[in-house]
């Protein structure tokens, strides 16, 4: 486990209890808490790659974390081109990865 959440029990900010949620990422269940972004949930599970670049097929995930770079695009509940770092996850969200072939055909 490399990228990971700060363990609430030892976090000096003393977080209060949070509301657990589950999202589906490419059909796999991922646990998170309410208020996390889609990118936050992926990174907390050490998932760094969820896209490939359109020409070279190179792995991409979160880079700027503030909505500027558009590297982290995913499909959320059927909607394409959603910045994972900007979208708060909701319980039951269905997240899929965008493939290079899809983004060509627009």
């Amino acid at each position, binding site marked *: 486990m490399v990228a990971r959440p700060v363990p609430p029990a030892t976090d000096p900010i003393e977080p209060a209890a949070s509301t657990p949620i589950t999202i589906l990422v490419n059909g796999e269940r991922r646990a998170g808490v309410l208020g996390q972004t889609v990118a936050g949930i992926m990174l907390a599970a050490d998932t760094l790659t969820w896209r490939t670049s359109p020409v070279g097929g190179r*792995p991409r995930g979160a880079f700027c974390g*503030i909505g500027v770079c558009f590297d982290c695009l995913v499909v959320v509940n059927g909607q394409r081109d959603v910045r994972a770092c900007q979208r708060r996850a909701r319980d039951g969200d269905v997240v899929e990865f965008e493939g290079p072939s899809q983004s060509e055909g627009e």
Partner: protein
Amino acid sequence: MSEVVIIGAGPAGLAAALSASAFGARVVVLDAADDVGGQYWRHLPPERPSNHESLLHHGWATFQRMREALAADPNCTVVSSAHVWAIDRGAVHVLVGEADGSDRESRVYRPDALVLATGAFDRTLPVPGWDLPGVFTAGGAQALAKGERVAVGERVVVAGAGPFLLAVAASVVATGASVVGVYEASRATRLVRHWAARPWELAATPAKARELVGYAAVLVRHRIAYVAGHAVTAIEGRDRVESVTVSALDGSWRPIKGSERQLEADAVCLGHGFTPRLELAIAAGCRLSDRRFVEVDAEQRTSVASVFAAGEITGIGGVDLALAEGAIAGHVAAGGGIVDPALRVEVARRRVLRRFARRLARAHVIGENWATWLSDETIVCRCEDVSVADLAAARSATRSSGLRSLKLVSRAGLGPCQGRVCGRTVEALLSARAPEGRLGGASTDRRPIAMPIRLGELARDHEIEAGIPVKGQG
């Protein structure tokens, strides 16, 4: 009562809102995030409360005070999740709703005065391997630490230029990760020359000095090496970061041969200063300075009547300068004057803090030979996979130094980020070899549509403009 619209709810925007309201204006604050604070006070959402969030921030009490004052102010409306996508002849076009959603509400504001406080984002110079997962912008790693409580890695390297690297290292350490080292490209002699010059000026900005000393203490406590005159000149790994190469640099940022060292790491935070978010200012018609910030006069007026600017888009100066500029801009936008007693303190603070900003700018100039650490295969434009060699090929194919044709041939800067990440780099790489050093006067800062917008939403905006009643669902 005049209406003042403020774009951006970071320190400058918040200060502008409170001071415009105090002078008697009706204020609307538009901000793309779902809560106020901007990048500087990026924080956990209300669904994730904690007892001591202030530990992650500087000036948290100031922020809380401003946020509460704004919420309690009947003349101020904060519209969060407000994505301003165009400014056209005084009309501010906004989509309100979830980021990249499809059923967002379209609004158009035509205020009496507009205050632009759109801030800045990390400038990141490319490095071989910088597109590997596990590489983050310095600000991105900090945003994930503060706004998500996520550690981007276990062994983290922080590299680039500027005092912000210290803040990032402190944020990363506070996630429990270990910081392998902080590598500052500027050499110690340069840093000392500019930081130690005129020490009485530093004494006039105690908050800044305290903040820096605080970061230095974090580094000492965690035994983190701060190495000046060094850069990460390559990042290695198969499908994620596995190691970095650190090299000593000369004064022009050219790597010194034989100085390379490989360090094991699983995440890298890169930042080489900041790029102002200029697209809305350009759309509004504001004149830019030679250093490519929004030009403002003593009253924070831009070259366009009734349009004001404050904070990082007028020059990188930090939170306190943004607060002072915002307060001045808001007051004047609401109809006040610079000589009003209400502004006396802010005007004096602005003077001192601008001097501090100039010191920073001089100490942390990007070295002219940084590009010597690139290889032909290094990706320049991450969106479109344009490499250094592709860019060179585009230039010889077009035999042109016009930025527009070079972009069209190479596709650099034409992807979804619209050149935000690579724009300045593309300009630097192309103009270094362009005969006149200029690129046909073009700039990568111009984005007539400031944010990607879905076609259905664009159609609805036109219906609003034409006065056609908008149906509930599109």
